[in-house]
C-alpha cells in the first residue's frame, strides 16, 4: 500500500469544494469532427467514459485531503512522488494527458509543420521524416499501455521523442510536452483493433494539430527563459 506521508486527511471547508473540483474539459471540436480518422464512437467512449472516469475518480480521491484545491499539475507532481506513486497519480495524470491529447489533434490536421517548429525538428532529428519515424516507432514499441511524446528539453534547448508507460507524462520528467499520442488500447481498438501502426499513421497524416504544437513550443521557451 502507498504511504500516506504528507497527505493528511483534514477536513476542508465546503466553499472550497466547488472551486477545487477538477472538471472534465470538452475537446476543442465536436465528437464527430475527427471522422473518419478517429470515429465519433471512439470519442464517445474515450472522452465520455474513460476521461470522465479519471476526472470523477480523482475528485473522489482528493476530496478532504491536502490535494483538494491544488491545480491539476501540482497534484500530478505531488502524487508522482519521485516514482513512488501515490494512488491518485494515475487518475490525475490521465486527466491531464487526455486534455493534452484532445488538444494535440484537430479536424483537417496532420501533414507537416512550418516556421520555427519545422526548423527545430530538422535541426534535432535531421528531417521531418526522421522525426516522424522516431515518433511512430516510440509509440509502436511502448509495451502495454502508455503514451509517446514530442518534448522540449530546456536544459539542452532540444526537441526529443520519449515514450512513457501508463499515466506517466513529461511534467514529472522535467520536460515540456509539445505533442502526444495515446497508445492505450482503448484509444484505437474500436477503429483499428490490434493495428496500432495503422492508427499511428492516420494520426500523423490526418490528426496532429501543428498549430497547438507550435504555440506550446513558444510557451515552453518563454517559460524556460524565465527560470
Amino acid at each position, binding site marked *: 500500500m502507498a504511504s500516506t506521508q504528507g497527505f493528511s486527511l483534514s477536513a476542508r471547508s465546503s466553499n472550497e469544494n466547488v472551486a477545487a473540483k477538477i472538471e472534465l474539459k470538452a475537446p476543442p471540436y465536436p465528437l464527430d469532427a475527427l471522422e473518419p480518422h478517429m470515429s465519433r464512437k471512439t470519442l464517445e467512449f474515450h472522452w465520455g467514459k474513460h476521461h470522465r472516469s479519471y476526472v470523477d475518480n480523482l475528485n473522489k480521491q482528493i476530496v478532504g485531503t491536502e490535494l483538494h484545491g491544488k491545480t491539476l499539475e501540482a497534484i500530478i507532481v505531488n502524487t508522482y512522488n519521485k516514482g513512488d506513486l501515490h494512488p491518485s497519480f494515475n487518475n490525475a495524470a490521465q486527466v491531464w494527458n487526455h486534455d493534452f491529447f484532445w488538444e494535440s489533434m484537430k479536424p483537417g490536421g496532420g501533414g507537416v509543420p512550418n516556421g520555427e517548429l519545422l526548423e527545430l525538428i530538422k535541426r534535432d532529428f535531421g528531417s521531418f521524416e526522421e522525426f516522424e519515424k522516431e515518433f511512430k516507432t516510440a509509440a509502436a514499441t511502448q509495451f502495454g499501455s502508455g503514451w509517446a511524446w514530442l518534448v522540449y528539453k530546456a536544459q539542452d534547448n532540444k526537441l526529443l521523442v520519449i515514450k512513457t508507460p501508463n*499515466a506517466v507524462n513529461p511534467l514529472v520528467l522535467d520536460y515540456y510536452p509539445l505533442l502526444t499520442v495515446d497508445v492505450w*488500447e482503448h484509444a484505437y*481498438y474500436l477503429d483499428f483493433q*490490434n493495428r496500432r501502426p495503422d492508427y499511428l499513421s492516420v494520426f500523423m497524416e490526418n490528426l496532429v494539430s501543428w498549430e497547438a504544437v507550435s504555440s506550446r513550443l513558444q510557451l515552453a521557451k518563454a517559460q524556460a527563459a524565465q527560470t
Partner: protein
Amino acid sequence: MALRTLINRKTLTTTVPLGFRGLQTFSLPDLPYDYGALEPAISGEIMQLHHQKHHQAYITNYNKALEQLDAATTKGDASTVVKLQSAIKFNGGGHVNHSIFWNNLAPVHEGGGEPPKGSLGWSIDNSFGSLEALIQKMTTEGAALQGSGWVWLALDKEFKRLVVETTANQASCVLLFLQDPLVTKGPSLVPLLGIDVWEHAYYLQYKNVRPDYLKNIWKVINWKYASEVFEKENP
C-alpha cells in the same frame, strides 16, 4: 469493423524453418474450441482477434528476437544480447501467458464455469474461505490493475499455498521476483489460472467496463485444467 461472419476454429500452425544451429522457434497453438464457443461471456470476434492477431504477434516477435539473440550470441555482441532482453521478456511472456489462458477457458458445454472439485477445490476453500471469496478477490484485483496486465491464481510451491498475484504487461507469473526485489518467491510460483485484463481482451464487447468482463468470464473458466496443473504439482 468487420461483419460478423461465420466464425470457426482455424488451425494456424505456422512452420518456421529451423536455423542452422537448430534454433527452436514457436508457433501458434490451436484453441481447444471454436472462436464462438465462449459466447456470450467472450465474443467470437474478440477470441479470433485475440488468438490470430495478438497472440500470433507475440509469437512472431518472440521468434524474431530469439533469432537476433542467437546471432548476437554467436558474434559475442554482449550489448545487443542485453538490449534484446526486454523484447524477449515481453513477447515470450505474451506467448507463455496466452498459451496458458486458452486452456483456462472452456465452453459451458465442456465444463466451463463448473466449480473445481477435488484437491484444488479443497485448497481454495482452505486458502480463501470459499470459491466465491477467491473469485471476488481476483475480480477486484483485476479491475484495479492500472494499465495492462494479468491477474493470476498460482501455487506457491515453496510455501505450499495458493496465492493471487497481478503482473504488469506480459510479465510472467514466474518472474514476479524480478519486478519486486523484495519478493523472492517468484521462481516457485506455478500459474494455475490467469485472466488477461489488457483492454484487447474485452474492449470490443465490454468497452471501458472491465468489471463486467471480469464478472462474466467466470462462466467460462476451465477449472478442470487448473485442477490438473495443481494435482501434478501436488501428487
